[in-house]
């Protein structure tokens, strides 16, 4: 009886791998550095854009006031004018056209895929639809001027060969999958119970989709919209090829105009001397674009958090 109290077993000698091996620490630091690298990328972007924009505004012929309010953008010709508004208007008009196409189409497809389509159809249609956003944008640009442009011109004979409508329409097709895939994911995440509740009350599919599932998924859908918006604002090759490329302060999509991105591409193709006004101007334009997309991205993150439903 005296040996009733079992002596604790000596622990096995721990293998050498346990504990703070220096190699382990080293690996962790290495992985951390890789994660921190992404911050360097952002810092690099902000540094370059801000630094060169400051140099741009230091040029004697440029003023911040003219940049923000001027109605002409001709940095490369005499008389030089530095009002960014024509580029911003071109960017916003092409974006608006693209969203008018992509938001309703993408949303309807998303609702259909999530609430109506059979499982097999959804699984096969979704990746094929996503190919639309995988097509290189230069190919879309070619498609816009070789097919869509002439097609629209045969319907509306007065249309110029290059205009924002053509660019916006094609861009809209390109961003449909961003809207449809993300919205579909969001709606599929809505628990079945909510739908069953709705059906039990006698609602039909469409009513359930629009009144129950859609509102429940609104945070994800709003995030999809803002992503589509920032894609459209930053899209380059389609507008550089199809929108006409001449800065033009207008809200009429049937006119030719240049976007911020198209201007940057146009200038980069020429041989501009380093540190000239033209060279610095693309960074000021880039900073404007960066601020716009950052705004959309933050809005998207905010919406996601604001309207997130916890089930």
């Amino acid at each position, binding site marked *: 009886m005296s040996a009733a109290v079992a002596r604790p077993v000596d622990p096995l000698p721990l293998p050498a791998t*346990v504990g703070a091996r220096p*190699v*382990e620490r080293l*690996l*962790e630091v290495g*992985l951390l550095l*890789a*994660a921190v*690298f*992404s*911050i360097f990328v*952002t810092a*690099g*972007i902000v540094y*370059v*854009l801000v630094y*060169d924009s400051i140099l741009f505004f230091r040029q004697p012929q440029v003023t911040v006031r003219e940049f923000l309010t001027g109605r002409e953008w001709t940095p490369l010709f005499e008389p030089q004018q530095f009002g960014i508004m024509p580029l911003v208007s071109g960017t916003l008009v092409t974006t608006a056209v693209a969203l008018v196409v992509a938001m309703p*189409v993408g949303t*309807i*497809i998303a609702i*259909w895929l999530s609430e*109506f389509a059979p499982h097999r159809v959804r699984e096969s249609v979704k*990746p*094929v*639809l996503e190919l*639309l956003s*995988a*097509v*290189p*944008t*230069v*190919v879309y*640009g*070619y*498609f816009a001027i*070789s*097919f869509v442009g002439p097609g629209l011109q045969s319907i509306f004979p007065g249309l110029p060969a290059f205009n924002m409508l053509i660019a916006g329409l094609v861009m809209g*097709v390109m961003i*449909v999958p961003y809207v449809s895939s993300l919205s579909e994911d969001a709606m599929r995440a809505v628990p079945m119970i909510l739908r069953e509740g709705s059906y039990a009350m006698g*609602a*039909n599919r*469409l*009513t359930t*989709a629009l009144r129950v599932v859609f509102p429940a998924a609104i945070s994800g859908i709003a995030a999809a919209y803002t992503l589509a918006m*920032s894609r459209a604002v*930053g899209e*380059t*090759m389609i507008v550089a*090829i199809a929108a006409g490329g001449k800065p033009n302060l207008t809200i009429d999509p049937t006119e030719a105009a240049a976007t911020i*991105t198209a201007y*940057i*591409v146009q200038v*980069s*193709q020429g041989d501009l001397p*380093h540190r000239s006004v033209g060279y610095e101007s693309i960074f000021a334009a*880039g900073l404007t674009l960066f601020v716009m*997309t*950052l705004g959309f991205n*933050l809005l998207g*993150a905010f919406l996601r958090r604001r309207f997130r439903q916890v089930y």
Partner: protein
Amino acid sequence: MDDLHTIIRRGQLWDRAFRWTGAGLTVLCLGVLALLLGDLVYEGARRLDWSFITNYPSYRPERAGILSPLVGSLLVMIVTGLTAVPLGIAAGVYLEEYARKNWFTTIIEINISNLAGVPSIIYGLMALGLLVYQFRLGTSILTGGLTLAMLILPIVIVATREALRAIPQYIREAAYALGATRWQVVSNHLLPYSMGGIATGVIIALSRAIGETAPLVTIGALTYIAFLPPAPFSVTREGASVGPTEWLMSPFTVLPIQMFNWVSRAGTDFAAHAAATGIVLMAITLTMNAVAIAVRYRVRRRIKW
């Protein structure tokens, strides 16, 4: 007051109408994709032959080909892949498996999701200011590859994290219970199991990079290149021997830039060249996407946790 049957019938009618609208719009979008491919093939197929692949770009349309942009795209992709894939996987592993939840990792996460939304041309401007002029790398294959690597880094990181998150917690717990260290858990268990998901993300990211035009135009990639970068360990015509990394510093062009250049000369004999280049680009993109879909499908089939 409608009777119940009318209400039900009206609901069914709406359902059916929406079903057709949704299916119709989906078919319409896929139809646009088909039109785009058809247009490319219609305009470009007659130009697409072996000499198109093996000739250099030229100002004479009948002799122009895509050899140098094809090789350029390949070399740039090698640099991009070798940089973005290890960096992206490492960052993903850190954030998913090592990082404690604190303000610092939160900043990194917000930063990565913001980077994913930055337009590609902004990366081009950053590379122009930083890589080309500050680090003096010039408009080289190295600069091009690094630019695209930074561009696709967020995609690789997100794919890695999602693949890791799909692995159930008990796999980690079992390994730790047997005394494995964190790195052993990661390298012996988590990475092998998540390889499929990571590979899908990497392929998608690379196929995105191969189609990118804007950032490479911005850093000043050339449009007409009638030579190839020096092959490693070869000897130049002047008799100098070439080191293993000299190709990194060569000027380059890529397929999308070549296509853009030809598109800009619309209405000339080069229109067909643009379409033919588009066919090659689409073939590459579609192949990579098909591989990615196949990998994803196989992984989903094989693994049952």
